[in-house]
C-alpha cells in the first residue's frame, strides 16, 4: 500500500498528539498527593474541614492547570497544525 506524504504527516501528527498527553501523569500524581494531605488534615482536625477543603480546591486547580496545558498542546496538534 502506497502512503502519500500527506498521509504520513497526518499519521505523525496523531502520534504527536498522543505523546503530548504523557504529560498528564505528573498532575495526576500531584492531585493525589494534595488530596492525601487534605484528608490527613481533616482526619486530625475535622472542625477545620471548611477551610481545608477550600484550600484543597485551590491547590487542585493549580495542579490541574499543568495537565490542561498538555491537553491544549495535544488539541492544537490535532486540530490546528
Amino acid at each position, binding site marked *: 500500500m502506497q502512503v502519500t506524504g500527506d498521509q504520513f504527516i497526518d499519521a505523525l501528527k496523531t502520534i504527536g498528539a498522543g505523546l503530548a498527553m504523557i504529560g498528564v501523569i505528573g498532575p495526576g500524581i500531584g492531585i493525589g498527593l494534595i488530596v492525601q494531605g487534605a484528608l490527613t488534615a481533616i482526619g486530625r482536625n475535622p472542625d477545620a474541614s471548611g477551610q481545608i477543603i477550600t484550600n484543597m480546591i485551590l491547590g487542585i486547580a493549580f495542579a490541574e492547570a499543568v495537565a490542561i496545558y498538555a491537553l491544549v498542546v495535544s*488539541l492544537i496538534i490535532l486540530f490546528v497544525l
Partner: protein
Amino acid sequence: MKGCLIFLAIVIAGAIFCVWIPFILLPDNGIAMALPVISVPGEKLCEDCFGTGITITNTIIGTLLADMVVLLFAFGATRHLKEVPGRLQGLFEVLTDALYGLAKSTAGPNARKIFPLMATIFIFVLAANWLELIPGVDSVGIMHCAEEGFSGYPADGAFLKVTEPLDAGEKATEADYEACHAKEEGVEHEEVEPEAGVGEADVNDNLHVVTPFVRAAATDLNLTLGLALIAVLAVQFFGIRTLGISYFTKFINTPALENAGKRPMGLMDFVVGFLEIISELSRILSFGFRLFGNIFAGQVLLFVIPFLAGALLPMFVYGFELFVGVIQAFVFGMLLLVFASMAMQGHGHDDSHETHE
C-alpha cells in the same frame, strides 16, 4: 425490588438513547450526527460588518451575552431594595455574603479594596462558562463552504447531509473550497492548481461546515489573556496604592543590598527579587491558559461525546461541565484575591490572617 426496577429503567433508557437512536433509527432516516468544527481561534461571522470595518467573531457574541446576563442580574436584584429580600435580591445577597466572607478571611483588612474586582470577575466568568451549556449555543449557526483543513459534509438544502453514524466528514482542500464557492456564486473562479497526485475528478465541490452563532466566551484566548492581564495589572496597582513606591522592593530588593554588610547571605534575596519578575509574568500565562484550557477542553468533550455516544452519556459530561465552570470561576477569583492580598501585605511580612471561626 424498586432499586432493581430503577436499574432496569436506566439500562433500557441507555440502550434506547445511546445505541438505538443515534446508530440505528436516525441514520435509517438519513439523519446522523455530524462532528462540529473544532477550531482554536474564534470563528469570524462577518468581516467588515455593516460597512464599519469591524470583524465580529462568535466568541464576541458569547462575551456580549455574558455581559448582558451579568448586568441584567445586577440591575434586577438591586432595584427596589427591600428589607425582607425577594428571591433575586436574596440570591444576590447570599452570593455577595459568601464572596465577601472569603475575601475577609484571606485578605483581612484589605478586603474592601479587592472585593469588587474579584467578585465581578467571578460572576462574569461564571456566566460566560454556564452560557456554553444552553442548547443552541455552539450548535446553531451559518452553513458555508469548508475552508482548507476543515472536514466538511455535503449539504442538503438547509441542513448537512450525514447518513452514516460516526462519519467524520471529508477533509477539504483549497481546490474543494474554490469549487464550492464557484458553484455558490455562479461565477467563474480561476482554477486553483490541484496538488500533484489529485486528479480533476477528486475535487469535491459540495463540502460544507456550520459555524455557530454563539460560542462560549472563555474558549477564546483573547478573553482569557485579557482577563489575566487585567488581574496581574490590578495586583500591581493595589500593591503600589497600599505600599507606595516601596512595593517595587519586591522585585529590586535594595534593602537586602543595604544590609549586605551585616547579613551577607541577604544578597540571595536580591537575586530572588529578579526571579519574582519572571514569576509575575508567568502568572499572566498561567491565568489565561488555565481558564482557556479547561473551558476549551470541555467544549471539545461536549462536541465529541454526543458524536460518539448518543444522547444519554453526554448528560454526565454536562454535569461535569457545570462543575468545572464554577470551579474555574472560583479559582480565578481566589487566585486574584490571594495574589492581591500578598502584594498589599508587602514582602517578607507574614501578618496573621483573621482566624476563621
